[in-house]
C-alpha cells in the first residue's frame, strides 16, 4: 500500500492548469469560449510546441475531470488511431465514470509550507485520493517537490532530495529527459517511514487530437512518463503514465497503468481521467 501510494505520487504531473469555461454573452455572439479567461491571456498557436507561457498554473482554479472509480481498472486505448500527417487521434469521450474536481491550492499558509519553502501550489495527485503533490512552477519546468497528506494528521510527508522535473518546457514531440532522485530520510507515508530511489523517463512521443466527453482538443501532445522505483529491500515497482497536454488547457487527459506494467500500449488502466465540464 505504501509503495503504491508513493508510486502514484511520483507520476503525478501538473494537475490543474485549465480554467473555467466562459459562457455565452451577447457581446461574443452568444457562443461559448473555452480558453483561459479571468485575466490570463493565452491563445493557442497550434505550432505543436507547448511553451511555458502556454500552460497556466493558477492557484484557486478548479478543474472537473471524469475518471474511473477508485480501485477499478478501466479499459483504455492509449494507442489511438493514425490520423495522417504523423498525427494520432485518441477517443476518450466515454461518459463512464465519476466526475471529480481537482483544485489547485496555494502552498503558502498550508501545514507543509515550512517543509517546502519554495513550493507554489499543491494539488491532489489523484482526485480520488487525498494526498497532495507539492509543486513549483518555474520559467522552464514544473517540478514535483514532494508529497504530503491533506492534513498533517495523515502522517504523510515525502520530500525529494532533488525536485522531479515533471514537465520541461518547451514540450514538443521528441523531447526526452530523465530524472533520478530519492526520498529524504525523514519521509513517511501514513506515519510509516518510507524510502525509495526513483527514476523518471519522460518522453513527448505523439501529437494529435484528443476527444474527451465534452470537448475535442484538436492539437495535443502525449507525454509518456515511465517511473521505476527501487526500495531498500531490493524490490522495485514500475508504472507507465500518459498525459495529454494541450496549449492553454494543460493536462486534458491522463491514463495510468497498473503496477508493474511493461507494455507501453497497455489496455487496462488504474486511472483513466479526462477533462469534463
Amino acid at each position, binding site marked *: 500500500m505504501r509503495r503504491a501510494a508513493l508510486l502514484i505520487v511520483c507520476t503525478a504531473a501538473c494537475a490543474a492548469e485549465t480554467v473555467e469555461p466562459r459562457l*455565452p454573452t*451577447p457581446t*461574443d455572439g452568444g*457562443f461559448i*469560449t473555452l480558453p483561459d479567461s479571468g485575466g490570463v491571456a493565452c*491563445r493557442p498557436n497550434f505550432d505543436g510546441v507547448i511553451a511555458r507561457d502556454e500552460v497556466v498554473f493558477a492557484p484557486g482554479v478548479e478543474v472537473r475531470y471524469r475518471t474511473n472509480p477508485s480501485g477499478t481498472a478501466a479499459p483504455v486505448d492509449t494507442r489511438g488511431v493514425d490520423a495522417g500527417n504523423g498525427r494520432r487521434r485518441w477517443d476518450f469521450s466515454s461518459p463512464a465514470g465519476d466526475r471529480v474536481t481537482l483544485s489547485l491550492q496555494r502552498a503558502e499558509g498550508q501545514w507543509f509550507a515550512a517543509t517546502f519553502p519554495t513550493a507554489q501550489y499543491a494539488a491532489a495527485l489523484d482526485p480520488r485520493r487525498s494526498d497532495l503533490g507539492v509543486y513549483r512552477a518555474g520559467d522552464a519546468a514544473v517540478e514535483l517537490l514532494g508529497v504530503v497528506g491533506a492534513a498533517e494528521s495523515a502522517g504523510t510527508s515525502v520530500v525529494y532530495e532533488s525536485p522531479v522535473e515533471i514537465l520541461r518546457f518547451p514540450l514538443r514531440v521528441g523531447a526526452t529527459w530523465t530524472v533520478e532522485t530519492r526520498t529524504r530520510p525523514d519521509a513517511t507515508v501514513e506515519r510509516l517511514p518510507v524510502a525509495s530511489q526513483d527514476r523518471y523517463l519522460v518522453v513527448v512521443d505523439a501529437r494529435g487530437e484528443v476527444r474527451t466527453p*465534452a*470537448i475535442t482538443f*484538436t*492539437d495535443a501532445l502525449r507525454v509518456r512518463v515511465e517511473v521505476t522505483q527501487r526500495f531498500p529491500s531490493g524490490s522495485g515497482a514500475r508504472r507507465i503514465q500518459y498525459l495529454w497536454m494541450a496549449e492553454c488547457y494543460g493536462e486534458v487527459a491522463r491514463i495510468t497503468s497498473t503496477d508493474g506494467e511493461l507494455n507501453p500500449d497497455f489496455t487496462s488502466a488504474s486511472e483513466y481521467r479526462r477533462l469534463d465540464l
Partner: protein
Amino acid sequence: MRCALALSLALAAGAASAQTPTPRPGDEGAAAAREPFRDAPGVTPLHEPLRDTANARDTRIRVRGFFRTRGDVGLNWDLGRGPTPSLPAVWPTPYAERAGRNTQTNLDMRLRLDATADIGWGVSLHGRLHVLDNLRWGSVPEGEFVGGAVNQSSPPDPIQVRQLYAQVLLPFGMLYAGRMGALIDWGTGFFINAGNGLDDDFGDVGDRVAFVAPLGGLLWSVAYELTASGVGSDALRPEIKPAFDLDPSDDVRTFAFSVSRWDAPATRDRRLAARRTTVNFGLLGAYRSQSWDLAPGSTPAINTAIRRDLDAFVGDAWLRADVGSFTFEGEFAYVGFRIGNASLDPAAALNVETTGQQIGALLRADWRASPRFFARVEFGYASGDSRPGFGARPTNRAARAGDLDGPQLDLTTTPRDTNINNFRFHPNYRVDLIMWRRIIGTVTDAWYVRPMVRGRIWSMLSVEASVIGSVAVQPNSTPSGRAPLGVEADLGLVYEQEHGFVARLDYGLLIPLAGWTNVVRGVDPTLAHALHLVMAFRY
C-alpha cells in the same frame, strides 16, 4: 435574424405604397448617339453634365424624421431588496453615497433622419441616419475636472448610418437591395419590430436583397440576407482593394419567405371608420445556417477555423380581424436552433450541441367605443428556461439560484443543460415602464395580462392608463424562486400638436411580488416609481 424575417412584410408594405413612375420618352439614347466623342477613351464631353441634368426624371428628395429628447426619474429601481448572489442589486444604484439615495435621473437625445430620393423610372434610394444616438446629456464634458467644463465633446461615433438601400419597381414586383431594416412592424411587434417609434431604442438592420410581388390578393416575398460574411481577403493581403470575402463557408446566410395580406395604416383607418370587417394576416419563415467560423481575433488559417454547424429556423404567424368596433389579434412565434459546436476556440471543440426551442405568443382584444375612447386587453407569453436568471441580458458569469440574469445553459450539470429555451420579446415592444423595460430588459420567461384604456380629453391631449400583472413561467428564474413577479400601474399623458410636436409624460408604479423577495436575507421588495418624459420634434 428577427429583422431579416420582418423584411418580407416590410417589403410588402413598400410594394403596396410604391409610386408608379410617369415615364416620358427621353432622348438619352439619341443624345448619346450624337455625341461625337462618346467612344473616345479618356475624353469627357464638355456638355455631358448639362445633358444629364436636362434628362433627369422627376427626382424628388424627401427628408423625414424626428429629434427627440427623453427624461427619466427612477426611484427605488433596485426594489430595496439587497443583493443577488452575483450583483449588489438588481438595478445599479448610485455609487457616491452608501445609503439613503436611490433616486436616479437621466436625459438623452437622438436625431433620426430618414431620407428618400425618388429618382424616377421606379427607382428610389433610402437612407436612415442617427445623430447623437441616445447620447446622455452631459456625458462627454471636456476636461477631467468636469466642474469647470464649459463644452461638450462630440462622442466617438456621432453619426450612425443605420440603413441605406435602393428599390426598383419591376414589371412583376419590387426589388430591394442594400442595408435595410424592417420598415414596418410585423404583426404586433413583439417578435419583429421595426424600431420606428419615437421612444424606441433598438432597431435591427441587415444586408439583404429581396423581392416582393403581389399575387392572388396576397403579397409574397423572399429575401436573402448575408448576415455575416466572415473574414475578408484584407486579413491576408491588405493591398487588395476592395477586400473580397475570403471564404464562403464561414458566411452566415439567412433565407426568408413570407406571405401576407396587409393593409397600410391609412387603408386600415378608412375601413375602421367605415366599420368594415377586415382580416389581415401573415406567415413567415426563415432559415439561417453557418458551417465554419473563425476564432475571434485570429488570422484565417485551417488551425483557427472552427466547425460551427449552426442551423436556425424561425416561424411566425399573425392574424388580425377588425370586426365593427372590435379588433382581435394574435401572433405566435417560434425560434429553434442547433449549434453543433458553440466554442469560440478552435483548439477545443464542444462535443455537445447547443439547442433552443423558444415560443412566444400574444393575444389582444381592442374596443373602440368612440373616436375618443379606446380599450385593450392583452395577454403575452414567452417561454422560459429552468436555469437561474431570466436570460434577457445574460453575461458570461454562470448564474446561481437567486441571480437576476445569466446564461440559460449549463454544461457542468449532469445531465448537461444544453438548451436555451427562453423566448425574448423584442426589446422595443414595451409593456411597462419599470420591471420589464428597465430591471429585466425585456419580456422573457413569463406570461402577463395587461388591460389598458386611452381617452382623448382634449383635441390635442390624451390620457392612457394600464395595469400589467406578470408571472414567471419558470419560478427558478426569479431572484426568489417564486413565480409572481409584480403588478405595475402606468399612467400617461400625451400632448400631440399637429404633426410637428409630441410630448408624452408617463408615471409608473411597480408593486413587486414574491418573485423579488430576497430569501437569503429575508427582505421583501419595496415599491418602485418611474417618471418618463419624451419630447419629439418631428419633421
